[in-house]
């Protein structure tokens, strides 16, 4: 007989904040915006604020009335779709849909030939792209490293974007030098949509990454990017990077309030420029380690505060950019594995839409391709937990238990043949017996990760960019270099 009064929990359920707590945090953030305000180092931004209900004092300190903040928040879409350059890889930033990806702009890379740490180059970003393009559990690509062999630091972003496009066909999150840089990146990506502005807006390829400077500061280049994104409707994240105890309160709630206020100020500014820009909430909300003064990428507080932030984002109705798969460890060692796995679990369970910084070593300073390969395996495990427990009749298997009976075996049943495929099958983890492990060379996880990375780099090539488009892309990059040549 069918049952009544049933609630099925399809997936595990995790939240940090109650609705009452979220309302308190939101309300407090509105107070910060109205009472404390934020500074904007950009004349057009200040003019937009002056011509609105906001108040500008002390040259560049902006305070905004609540009514304007609330109107601004309502103007952003609740959902964002992104597609890679070939149109095949799609992701959706929809409530509780989790996508994983790399982080951006690591200044150093471990050279795979020499093992030495050196500055990141064009080819490193391209190779990271190829790895991300291949790995099934990475859904979007941030550059991983920052290109430093470009002719000019002021045009690194165009070179970096080209390397990313060459290496990877997945949707992207892009950093840029300033508004002009962002415009070039947008032009580059628009080429893949027939160089049509409206078509591109319908099928964007990237979200632009922009940061305020905590506490409550907005520099010229960040504001340029916000205004350009608003003008063109480019999906954009304004993601504070406060360190609790240094650039934000040491209490996590205070840090979340402050970073929410920082994001909401961007919402107001872009609303005044041109309402409707797709805005992603963010926040690498972590602690300053009080022994080393490192901005920690491996702390449990990062995961806890990010999950709480995600709760707030869902309540507000904005997509969320969260953090996981990263570490303070200098190398890909036990510490890296522990910290990466922990943060990935909680970022996933929280339901954040983009979980970035997968593969970051050394607190956001060192890049390693092997780290990406290791994290892909962890994400596979994490996603398995997300499948939850199905309790329908087929899964309760009462008939089968009765059929096999006491002392029987399930190995040869049709039910096993069907359902074992729903399990997670590790690619790199070793579950063999001791004698087999010895016979096969006593390989460690690090050995297996390295050979898998070698294999991907040797074998995987992303879908090529056609020659004409490639020339057009290079032209945009060269033009930028010429404009900026000294």
């Amino acid at each position, binding site marked *: 007989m069918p049952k009544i009064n049933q609630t099925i929990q399809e997936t595990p359920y995790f939240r940090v904040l109650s609705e009452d707590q979220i309302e308190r945090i939101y309300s407090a953030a509105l107070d910060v915006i109205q009472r404390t305000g934020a500074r904007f180092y950009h004349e057009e931004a200040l003019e937009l604020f002056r011509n609105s209900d906001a108040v500008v004092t002390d040259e560049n300190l902006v305070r905004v009335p609540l009514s304007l903040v609330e109107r601004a928040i309502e103007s952003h879409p609740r959902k964002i779709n992104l597609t890679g350059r070939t149109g095949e890889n799609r992701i959706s930033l929809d409530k509780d849909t989790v996508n994983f990806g790399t982080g951006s702009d690591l200044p150093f890379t471990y050279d795979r030939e020499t093992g030495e740490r050196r500055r990141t180059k064009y080819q490193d970003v391209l190779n990271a792209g190829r790895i991300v393009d291949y790995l099934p559990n990475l859904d979007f690509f941030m550059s991983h490293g*920052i290109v430093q062999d470009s002719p000019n*630091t002021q045009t690194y972003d165009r070179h970096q974007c080209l390397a990313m496009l060459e290496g990877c066909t997945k949707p992207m999150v892009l950093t840029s030098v300033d508004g002009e840089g962002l415009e070039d990146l947008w032009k580059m990506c628009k080429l893949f949509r027939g160089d049509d502005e409206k078509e591109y807006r319908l099928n964007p390829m990237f979200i632009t990454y922009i940061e305020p*400077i905590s506490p409550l500061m907005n520099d010229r280049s960040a504001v340029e990017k916000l205004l350009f994104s608003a003008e063109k409707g480019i999906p954009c994240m304004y993601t504070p990077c406060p360190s609790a*105890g240094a650039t934000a309160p040491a209490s996590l709630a205070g840090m979340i309030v402050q970073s929410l206020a920082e994001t909401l100020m961007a919402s107001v500014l872009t609303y005044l420029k041109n309402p409707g820009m797709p805005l992603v909430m963010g926040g690498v909300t972590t602690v300053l380690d*009080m*022994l*080393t003064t490192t901005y920690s990428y491996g702390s449990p507080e990062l995961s806890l505060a990010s999950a709480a932030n995600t709760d707030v984002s869902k309540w507000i109705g904005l997509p969320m950019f969260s953090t996981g798969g990263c570490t303070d460890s200098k190398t890909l060692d036990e510490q890296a594995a522990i910290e990466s796995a922990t943060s990935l679990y909680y970022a996933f369970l929280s339901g954040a839409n983009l979980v970035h910084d997968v593969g970051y070593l050394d607190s956001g300073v060192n890049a390693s391709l092997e780290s990406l390969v290791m994290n892909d395996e962890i994400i596979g495990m994490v996603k398995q937990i997300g499948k939850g427990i199905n309790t329908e009749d087929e899964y309760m298997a009462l008939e089968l238990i009765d059929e096999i009976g006491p002392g029987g075996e399930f190995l040869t049943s049709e039910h096993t043949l069907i359902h074992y495929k729903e399990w997670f099958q590790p690619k790199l983890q070793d579950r063999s017996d001791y004698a087999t492990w010895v016979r096969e060379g006593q390989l460690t996880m690090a050995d297996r990760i390295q050979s898998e990375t070698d294999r991907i780099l040797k074998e995987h090539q992303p879908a090529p960019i056609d020659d004409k488009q490639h020339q057009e892309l290079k032209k945009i990059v060269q033009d930028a270099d010429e404009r900026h040549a000294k």
Partner: protein
Amino acid sequence: MSEKLGKIADSLLNGNVEEVSKVTQELLDEGTDPEEILQSGLFAGMEVVSKKFKDCEMFIPEVLRSAKAMQGAMEKLRPKLSEASSSQAGTVVTATVQGDLHDIGKNLAGMMMEGSGFNVIDMGIDQKTEDIVNAVKEHKPQILGLSALLTTTMPKMGEVVNALKEAGIRDQVKIMIGGAPVTDDFADEIGADAYAPNASIGTEKALELIKG
């Protein structure tokens, strides 16, 4: 009298800002040699702080409270100290270079240096190269501390070094640089004198640079 010096050291260790300042003033009023207050009171206390920090018994917030107490006492002491005093060794000018508004690392380094007796003049964020050169001319610091977080603003530190050379005052000041993308190699490349990966090493290196 030595009891009071001991009290300064203890209060410094406990981060009791008011007490350190009060006892320093009392000792000065009683006619104690300022150099003795500095050496046997303040430096003695900060030495213990420094050791406890290294041994992970004290953390940054506690160290900074002690540094603040030290700075308060130094303000009273500095005018009374002779030119030859070891505390007169150091004025440090700090700045975040143009285009960069990040300053937490620089501020932290400044506070730690104050805790070691340096007189720190902070120019703030987004400082133009020529303004930094002018500050060096004006304050004649022994050390110039430059900070940049971004790879895009990092080259500005090299620009400052060159501008100091052009102004003919490069030899008058030691330059120390810091920031996440900065390295020893980069310091060599642009002709800076030292690179500090964090605030406490920055303070150690500043003391070394002063000794020459």
